């Protein structure tokens, strides 16, 4: 990893948003490949942050500031990524399900999808099933991506899938689900098309769902 990518990497781990944006600008000015900035600098840093969180080294505040630093860097990178990639990978309507306010993981998934040239319509957290339906209607999305972090809100994924069915949209979109308490088995049970245990695998799964 060259010096500037290393600087981006550590600024995200340290949650220094200003340093991240300055270094991303510098890297772009120097002609560094946007995909290298994204993958070697930012995605690698968030993976490390996730690891530090799992190990009990980092807590929620550190993780949130790191995610913010990544988000601001990504915002600068987006126009370049879109330019570099000939066409959009697909359109995704994303959100955390009704009753659930956990959005850190969902935001990471959205960021990584955007980083892979998906067009993401982020509905936020505590999203009503009808809101998902409406957004699919309006945007002609290819994928509905739902996140849930509470065992008590997981059932709302099924409710949303039922709402898509009732609106006659179920056959028009693929449903991707994720979040810490979920399993592949649960995803199968509720009739989702895909499940991913983490953000990078969410991108891979989204791509394979589009290809299918």
């Amino acid at each position, binding site marked *: 990893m060259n010096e500037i990518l290393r600087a981006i990497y550590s600024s995200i781990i340290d949650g220094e948003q200003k340093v991240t944006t300055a270094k991303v600008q510098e890297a772009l000015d120097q002609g560094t490949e946007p995909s290298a900035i994204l993958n070697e600098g930012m995605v690698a840093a968030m993976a490390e942050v996730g690891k530090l969180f799992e190990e*009990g080294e980092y*807590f*929620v*505040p*550190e993780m*949130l500031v790191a995610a913010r630093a990544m988000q601001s860097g990504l915002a600068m990178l987006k126009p370049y990524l879109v330019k570099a990639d000939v066409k959009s990978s697909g359109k995704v309507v994303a959100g955390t399900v*009704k*009753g659930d*306010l956990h959005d850190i993981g969902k935001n990471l998934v959205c960021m990584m999808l955007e980083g892979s040239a998906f067009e993401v319509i982020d509905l936020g957290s*505590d999203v009503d099933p009808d809101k998902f339906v409406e957004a699919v209607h309006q945007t002609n999305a290819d994928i509905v991506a739902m996140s849930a972090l509470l*065992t*008590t*809100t*997981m*059932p*709302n994924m099924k409710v949303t899938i039922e709402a898509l069915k009732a609106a006659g949209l179920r056959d028009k979109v693929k449903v991707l689900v994720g979040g810490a*308490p*979920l*399993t592949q*088995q*649960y995803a199968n*049970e509720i009739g989702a098309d895909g499940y991913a245990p983490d953000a990078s695998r969410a991108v891979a799964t989204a791509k394979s769902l589009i290809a299918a």
Partner: protein
Amino acid sequence: MEKRTFLERMSERGTLVLDGATGTNLQSRGLTKGLPAEVWVLEQPEKIIGLAQDFVAAGADIILTCTFGASSIRLEHTSLNGKGEMVNRRAAELAQRAVEGTPALVAGSIGPTGQLLKPLGPLDETDAIRSFAEQARYLADAGVDLLVVETQFDLAEAKAALTGIQMVTNLPVVCSFSFDRGTRTMMGVKPAQVGNEISPLGVAAIGINCGRSLEDNQKAMIELRDSTSLPIWFKPNAGLPQLDASGNPTYDISPEAMAAKVPEWISIGAKLIGGCCGTSPDHLAAIAKEVHKSQLFPSR
């Protein structure tokens, strides 16, 4: 019969028995996953009374109202939006009915708002204080004997809760944290910080609830005890929650295994002992039996 108050009972020797879990027990009695327990306060009040009565029968000296998530900020995201006053009053009445004719007391439960305070999250401190004050007033007006601010993870939010509560009532307040990252809260707060920063704020007891494993909770209690002179409230989960294949949490500690720890908890300094998630009335009965045994043979 005039009941001895919370503070009177706290000043006596010996250990008080708290209740067990609300959410996980109501779920095993049919509460649909995804529904906040407060929904049953209005729709299945007999189930709420039934569980509280089971805890009293098991030996609880204090039971908690089913109002953990009944702050206005929390209810906004549920079908009970705008019904905070009704839910809190009814829940207090149900708990009072369950302890009728017994010496058991009713603690009004106040949980976190479920949102992070600024700058990490969207919540204004003043809005948080207002929401806590409002819930405390509903519970106090309904006649609860004490209030417990529980499952806290952020010092700033816990302080907002205490500020709000103390604006509207002089009831004794307990403040309890959840160290669900082991011996740190999800925000990274350590038990010693809780002891140092919360003890001076006019609380009657300070404590630990929920959390992770019994071992971690016990370690956290030692650290907390070393940083406070207040009585300690201890309401751990019945072990580490494991998620089964369909995502239901299961708790692996048997009533006997949990109760076996009670003498140690008392020797560390727990004054109020119960259980959180996974603690059934059977668990609580076993805990109460140990508490009472240790009272008869204090040297054990």
